[in-house]
């Protein structure tokens, strides 16, 4: 369990596929504005998929493929930024609430985590989002982070609570290491895989939340993104008009990002967490039986 563990995920097929999809999407996000025709150029309304428009056109006559490719920028930006911020805040809160459990500060932070845990996230987000000016995605990222950190903070806190009573931590404490040193050299390294996992799920969650918010018309509907595509598709009753090529692709793309991240997480479990590795229980039990028989 160390930093190189994250790169070990590449040794599993799932990890390689996951990283492959993700890299491809990031490449699309970076390159598309220079390659793809402008999403704001209008063609005919509701043209079905053809050689000219691979994914057809939407109600406004825009090329759906352009929107899908350029829309990836917003989703990935929101996902990774919010994912990183969620992880950082959750970790900081968890360390204070967990490691300094017995201090007043620790109690206070624990209480804050507990209160935020019970506030219903999406309703709160909608209330916040309805008041923020939304021509940019950054306020939305801020709002998503505000509502998303408590659950990972709780998971990390409970891990820290277990860790701090482990022999090697107690031993280091006995040796007179400072709290900061212990957190840095004992606690955090043991948490790397969980932190990475928190980041992955934070990213998926942020992408989904942002899309939901846009679907409700609250996350800036004029931003070119998958969420706003779904909003307009629903608003113009795309399915009613039979324009499935407008409704399906954005959802599939969001799912594809999620699937890539889930694959990386699965491979992480396999590679990094030894307890989840394939142990043949019956084989080990047989050994124990032999030991007992021998005695």
């Amino acid at each position: 369990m160390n930093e190189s563990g994250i790169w070990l995920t590449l040794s599993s097929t799932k990890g390689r596929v996951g990283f492959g999809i993700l890299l491809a999407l990031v490449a699309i996000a970076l390159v598309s504005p220079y390659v793809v025709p402008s999403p704001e150029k209008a063609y005919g309304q509701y043209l079905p998929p053809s050689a000219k428009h691979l994914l057809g056109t939407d109600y406004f006559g825009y090329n759906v493929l352009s929107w899908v490719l350029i829309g990836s920028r917003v989703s990935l930006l929101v996902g990774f930024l919010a994912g990183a911020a969620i992880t950082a805040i959750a970790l900081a809160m968890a360390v204070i609430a967990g490691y300094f459990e017995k201090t007043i500060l620790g109690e206070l932070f624990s209480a804050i985590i507990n209160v935020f845990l019970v506030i219903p996230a999406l309703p709160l987000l909608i209330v916040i989002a309805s008041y923020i000016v939304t021509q940019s995605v950054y306020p939305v990222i801020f709002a998503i982070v505000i509502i998303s950190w408590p659950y990972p903070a709780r998971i990390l806190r409970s891990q820290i609570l277990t860790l701090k009573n482990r022999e090697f931590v107690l031993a280091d404490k006995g040796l007179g290491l400072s709290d900061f040193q212990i957190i840095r050299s004992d606690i955090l390294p043991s948490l790397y895989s969980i932190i990475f996992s928190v980041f992955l799920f934070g990213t998926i969650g942020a992408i989904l939340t942002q899309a939901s918010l846009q679907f409700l018309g609250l996350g800036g509907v004029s931003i070119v993104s998958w969420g706003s595509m779904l909003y307009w598709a629903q608003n113009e009753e795309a399915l009613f008009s039979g324009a499935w090529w407008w409704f399906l692709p954005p959802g599939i793309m969001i799912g594809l990002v999620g699937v890539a991240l889930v694959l990386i997480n699965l491979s992480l479990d396999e590679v990094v967490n030894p307890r989840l590795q394939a142990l043949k229980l019956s084989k080990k039990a047989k050994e124990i039986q032999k030991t007992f028989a021998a005695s």
Partner: protein
Amino acid sequence: MSGRTSYLAKKTAYLAVEVWVALTINFAIPRLMPGDPARVLLSRYLQQGVVFPPQTLTAFESLFGISHAPIYVQYGQYLVNTLTGNLGTSFTYYPASVWSVIRYAVPWDIALLGVATLLSFALGTFLGLLVGWSRNGKLDSSLTSVFSFLGAFPYFWVALGLLYTFSLVYKVFPVGHAYALNILPNFSLQFFGSYLYHAFLPVTTLLLVSLGGWLLLTRNTAVTNLSEDYMLFGQAAGLKKRRMLIYYLGKNSILPSLTSFSISLGLIVGGAILTEIVFSYPGIGYVLYQAVLNDDYPLIQGIFFVITVVVLVTNYIVDLIYGFIDPRVTATA
């Protein structure tokens, strides 16, 4: 016994503090937001083409309980009103009280989300145990991946797709509402059937996206527990697989999910906004969405208050039960 009493006292004190914090946040949020409630009210009337002299606005302000008193006086009034069950009057559904709007909507959330949460927890935990037991087998990798992947798709997208397919194209299920409008809610079999028919699609979509969470949680605990010594010894001692799965692995692996489960139970009264919007289901989520669109502060506050209190109280009860069962918990108190 004194340990238990002090534990009870401590938990109750915590509950009181948490409710107070929640109330205060609730009080602060609308006042921190841009836009003053009186102006919001005025704009609401202006949009309806209504023009009246300023004294009428004052009359309506007092009617809706909008006060220009100093903030600490407002805070005091708010605390007293809320704790005595007076949540104010909704702007959107005027003259209905906030309480009556909530009371109309909450039963439908319990009917929909209660069923979905219970089913999801039961099924997810069961499958989690199963795949945990046969970890890294075919069942494990396929179920774990399928449900993890499902959770990665936007919920409303999946729900809209199913709604379109089964309600608009094939017309197997209804497009909206919680029950057929020609039946009055009652305890008859007929009404129950109509409710199930209308709840089928929403519950199914909720199950699809929430099952994965319980499955993974239980699976990971189960896998950890499997390598504990008692499992090894149990198997070495020749205990039957089913017995070990249910009595040893099951009980120890479900426990960690129970706290999350109690929070989910509490959040039932919070509704499911996206589900209710896609399926036109008349729950709290839909009402809250309307309240947000119409700047209905009293209603937003009231809904948040009810949700928070229900969640906190549910947690409190679960904590107490833990405390009375597990002496270790009360000992550390």
